[in-house]
C-alpha cells in the first residue's frame, strides 16, 4: 500500500533572542522520519517542548512563530510539499490536509456562525458548492453525535460547550474530505467525562470517512485508544516508534517505560481521621449576579492529611477553595479552622489567620509577579508575616529553595527564566514560607507534563511528612486522588456527591456520577474506550 504521508529526516530550527546575548539558532526537531498510510492513525507522544506540535504542523508545511523547516522531506502522495510555493501550499492546506487545534474556543472566530466556519474551506477551495457543503456538514454533525445537527450550524461558538466546539472543529477539518487530519491535543483541555465522548466521536468519524490522522497528545492512555502506530518524542528526537500494541505493552526504551508506568507516587490512607483541622458545614455560595455555585456543601479535613476534591470544570471545586480563602464569602454555612470559626470575608481575617491558609494555583505563570525575582517572591511572606529582613531572610529563602529541591542559583531569576515545574516549585516555596497549617492546591499539576507533575506530587508528599501540613487538593484527575488522598470529596454541579475516606469513596457501590467519573479516566489499555462506552450507566451531561 502506498504511503499517504512520508516524512524523511525532518529538521526544524528556530532563532531565539536571549536578552543581552547574540541570537542563537536552536534545533527543535532533528532527524525525525515516519510513514502514514491511508486511513491509519499515528500518535505523536511527548512532553511539552518535545516538538510534537511542530512536527504535526510540518505536515501542512507550516512553521509556527519563527520555526523554519530546514531539512528533510515531507512527501504527501509522493510530492514534497516543502518545495511547493505559496500558492501550491495553499491548495494543499484545507483541501488535502486539515488541522484541529487544541483550544477550539480560541480557534473559532466568535463573530461567525459555526456552520459557516465549518464549510469555509470547502467553499474556498471550490470543492463543493454551498448546498453540498452544508449537506456534508450536517452529515458530519450527525456522525460526531452533536445535538440537534440540523440547527447546530446556526449557532455561534459561545453558544455551545467546549466538547461540542471541539467536535465542530473536527467537523470543520473533515468537511473538505481531506486525506489527512492533524489533531493537536484535541481533548487535552476537556474534562475526562467530555474527553471520552469527543474521543469516541473522533474515532468514529475517522473510521467512517476513512481519513488518515496524526494525533498529537501528551497522554499515552488517550492515544492508545485511537492510533494504530505510536511515535514517542523527546527533545525533538524520536525515542521509540512502533505499533500501539508494542509501545504500550512492550516498550523498548527506558523513557517510554517511564511514561507508561508514570504515577508511582503513592501513599496509603491515614487510618485515624478524627483530629479535625478544617470543617466546612452546609456552605452555600454564589456570585453577585445571583448565580449560585455551591449548594449545601459539608466536609472536613483531619490535621496533617490530604482531602482531595474531585470534579469536572463547573462542579464548584475551585469556588469552594475561594470560599475557604475568604475571597468569596459564603451566603450560608460556616467554616471552622482549628475549632474556631473563620470570618467569612477576607477583610475580616487577621494576618495570622491568613498566614495559616496558603494557596497554590494551577498556573504558576500567572500566580507569580513576572517582575519579581525568586528571592522577592519567596521572601515577601517572610518579611510580611515574620518581619524577617537582611541576611536572616536570605538564609531562610535559601533553606526553602533547598526544601523544594532547587538550588540557590535560582535566587535572582525571574519567573520567565524558569521551567513550568520550577515555577510551581517556587509557588510551593512561597506557600511554605508562611509556615501554613493548610495549603489549598488548585490543580497544581494539571498544566504540567506527567513526569514533572509526578515530581511535584512527590515533593508535596515529602513536605507533608516533614512539616505535617494539611492539603486540600483540588483536581479532576482520579489517578492523583488515588495516589495522595486520605479522604475524598466528589463534587458535581455545585453539590457534594460523595465524601469519606478514600477507600470508601473509591470502592463500590458507586452512585451514577462517581461511576461515570471513575470510568472516564483513560486507561493504558487497547480497546478500553469501546469497553467503557458499553458499560457506563450515565451519559455525560450536555456533551
Amino acid at each position, binding site marked *: 500500500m502506498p504511503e499517504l504521508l512520508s516524512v524523511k529526516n525532518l529538521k526544524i530550527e528556530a532563532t531565539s533572542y536571549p536578552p*543581552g546575548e547574540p541570537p542563537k539558532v536552536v534545533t527543535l526537531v532533528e532527524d525525525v522520519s515516519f510513514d502514514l498510510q491511508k486511513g491509519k492513525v499515528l500518535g505523536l507522544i511527548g512532553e511539552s517542548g518535545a516538538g510534537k506540535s511542530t512536527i504535526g504542523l510540518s505536515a501542512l508545511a507550516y512553521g509556527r512563530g519563527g520555526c523554519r523547516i530546514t531539512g528533510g522531506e515531507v512527501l504527501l502522495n509522493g510530492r514534497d510539499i516543502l518545495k511547493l510555493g505559496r500558492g501550491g501550499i495553499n491548495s494543499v492546506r484545507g483541501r488535502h490536509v486539515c488541522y484541529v487545534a487544541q483550544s477550539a474556543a480560541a480557534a473559532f472566530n466568535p463573530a461567525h456562525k459555526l456552520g459557516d466556519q465549518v464549510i469555509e474551506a470547502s467553499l474556498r477551495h471550490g470543492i463543493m458548492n454551498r448546498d453540498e457543503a452544508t449537506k456534508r456538514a450536517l452529515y458530519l454533525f450527525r456522525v460526531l453525535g452533536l445535538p440537534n445537527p440540523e440547527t447546530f450550524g446556526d449557532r455561534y461558538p459561545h453558544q455551545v460547550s467546549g466538547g461540542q466546539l471541539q467536535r465542530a472543529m473536527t467537523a470543520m477539518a473533515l468537511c473538505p474530505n481531506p486525506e489527512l487530519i492533524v489533531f493537536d491535543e484535541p481533548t487535552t483541555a476537556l474534562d475526562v467525562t467530555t474527553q471520552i465522548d469527543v474521543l469516541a466521536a473522533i474515532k468514529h468519524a475517522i473510521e467512517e470517512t476513512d481519513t488518515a490522522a496524526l494525533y498529537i497528545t501528551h497522554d499515552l492512555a488517550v492515544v492508545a485508544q485511537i492510533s494504530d502506530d505510536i511515535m514517542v518524542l523527546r527533545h525533538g528526537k524520536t525515542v521509540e516508534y512502533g505499533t500501539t500494541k508494542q509501545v504500550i505493552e512492550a516498550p523498548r526504551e527506558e523513557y517510554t517505560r517511564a511514561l507508561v508506568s508514570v504515577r508511582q507516587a503513592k501513599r496509603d490512607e491515614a487510618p485515624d481521621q478524627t483530629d479535625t483541622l478544617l470543617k466546612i458545614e452546609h456552605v452555600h455560595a454564589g456570585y453577585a449576579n445571583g448565580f449560585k455555585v455551591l449548594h449545601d456543601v459539608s466536609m472536613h479535613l483531619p490535621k496533617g492529611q490530604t482531602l482531595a476534591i474531585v470534579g469536572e470544570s463547573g462542579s464548584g471545586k475551585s469556588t469552594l477553595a475561594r470560599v475557604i480563602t475568604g475571597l468569596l464569602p459564603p451566603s450560608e454555612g460556616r467554616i471552622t479552622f482549628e475549632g474556631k470559626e473563620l470570618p467569612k470575608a477576607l477583610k475580616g481575617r487577621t494576618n495570622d489567620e*491568613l498566614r495559616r491558609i*496558603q494557596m497554590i494555583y494551577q498556573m504558576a505563570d*500567572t500566580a507569580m*509577579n*513576572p*517582575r519579581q525575582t525568586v528571592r522577592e517572591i519567596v521572601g515577601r511572606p517572610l518579611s510580611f508575616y515574620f518581619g524577617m529582613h537582611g541576611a536572616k531572610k536570605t538564609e531562610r529563602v535559601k533553606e526553602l529553595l533547598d526544601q523544594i529541591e532547587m538550588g540557590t542559583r535560582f535566587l535572582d531569576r*525571574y519567573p520567565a527564566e524558569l521551567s513550568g515545574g520550577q515555577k510551581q516549585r517556587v509557588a510551593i516555596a*512561597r506557600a511554605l514560607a508562611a509556615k501554613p497549617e493548610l495549603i489549598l492546591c488548585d490543580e497544581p499539576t494539571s498544566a504540567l507534563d506527567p513526569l514533572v507533575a509526578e515530581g511535584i506530587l512527590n515533593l508535596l508528599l515529602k513536605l507533608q511528612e516533614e512539616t505535617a501540613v494539611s492539603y486540600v487538593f483540588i483536581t479532576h484527575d482520579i489517578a492523583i486522588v488515588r495516589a495522595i488522598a486520605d479522604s475524598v470529596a466528589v463534587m458535581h454541579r455545585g453539590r457534594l456527591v460523595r465524601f469519606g475516606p478514600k477507600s470508601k469513596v473509591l470502592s463500590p457501590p458507586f452512585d451514577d456520577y462517581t461511576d461515570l467519573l471513575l470510568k472516564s479516566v483513560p486507561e493504558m489499555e487497547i480497546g478500553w474506550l469501546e469497553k467503557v462506552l458499553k458499560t457506563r450507566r450515565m451519559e455525560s451531561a450536555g456533551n
Partner: protein
Amino acid sequence: MNLRSIPFSAWIGIIGIAVALLCALFAPVLAPFGEREVVGEIWLPAGGDFLLGTDNLGRDLLSRLIYGARTTIFVALAATVLSFALGMILSFTAAVTGGFVDQFFSRFNDLMMAVPTLIFALVVLAVLPQHLWILVLVMAVLDSTRVFRIGRAVALDVAVMEFVEAARLRGEGNVWIIFREILPNTLSPLLAEFGLRFAFSILFLSTLSFLGLGIQPPAADWGGMVKDNKDGIIFGISAALIPGAAIAALAICVNLVVDWLMKRTSSLKGGRGDA
C-alpha cells in the same frame, strides 16, 4: 545595565535631551545675548553676529531659543510628571478598589473629559491669577484625565491576575498591591504614553501661549516664539521654523529614549511579553 547595551537610537535621544537640559540650566552663560535684549534689525538672516538671525522685534533668536528651553521644558515636564502621578494613583486606586470608588472616579473623569480641554483651560486660566505654577497645575489636571483612562484599563488587566489575588490572600494592603504588584507590570504602556503626553504638553503650552494665557511675553518659550514669528513666513523668513524644529527635535528625542526604556521593561527577562 551597562552603557554598551544602550542602542544607538537611544543615545541620540539621550544626547538631545542632555543638550536641551544644559541649555535650560546654564542659559545665562550659554546665551550670547540677553533674553529680552533688542540687538538689531528685525528678522535678520542667519549668520554674522546672530547665529540664527533675529526675531520680529530684533532680538537674537539663538539666545531666546536657549532661554526658551528653560520655560518650555520645565513647564511641559512638570505638567506631564504631575499629570502622570495624579492620573496613575487615582486610576490604580480605582482599579484595585472597584465598586463605588471606581464608579466615582471614573464618572468624574468622564465629566472632566466631556468639556473640551482647550476651553476648560481658557476659562480656568482666565479666572485664576497668572502664576507659572497655576499654569502647570491646570495643564497637569487636564492631562491626567487621559492618563486615568489608560491607567485604569491596564491596571484592571493586571489586577485580575492571580499574583495580585495571591498578594490579597497574604493580607497585603492596597499600597503594596498598587506599587509593587501592579505598577511594575504596567510600566510599558504608561511609558509609551508618557513620551506622547510630553510632546502634547509642549504643544498645548504653545497653544496657550499663542492665545495669550500661557507664558507671558516678553519671557521666551518655544511655542510663543513660533507665534511671534509666524507672520514672517509670508515674507519668506524662516525664523518661526527654528523654534518649531526645536520642539520637534525634543519630542523625538524624548520618544527615542522612551522607546528604548519600553523595550527594556517589556523584554523577556522579568517581562510580560509585549504588553
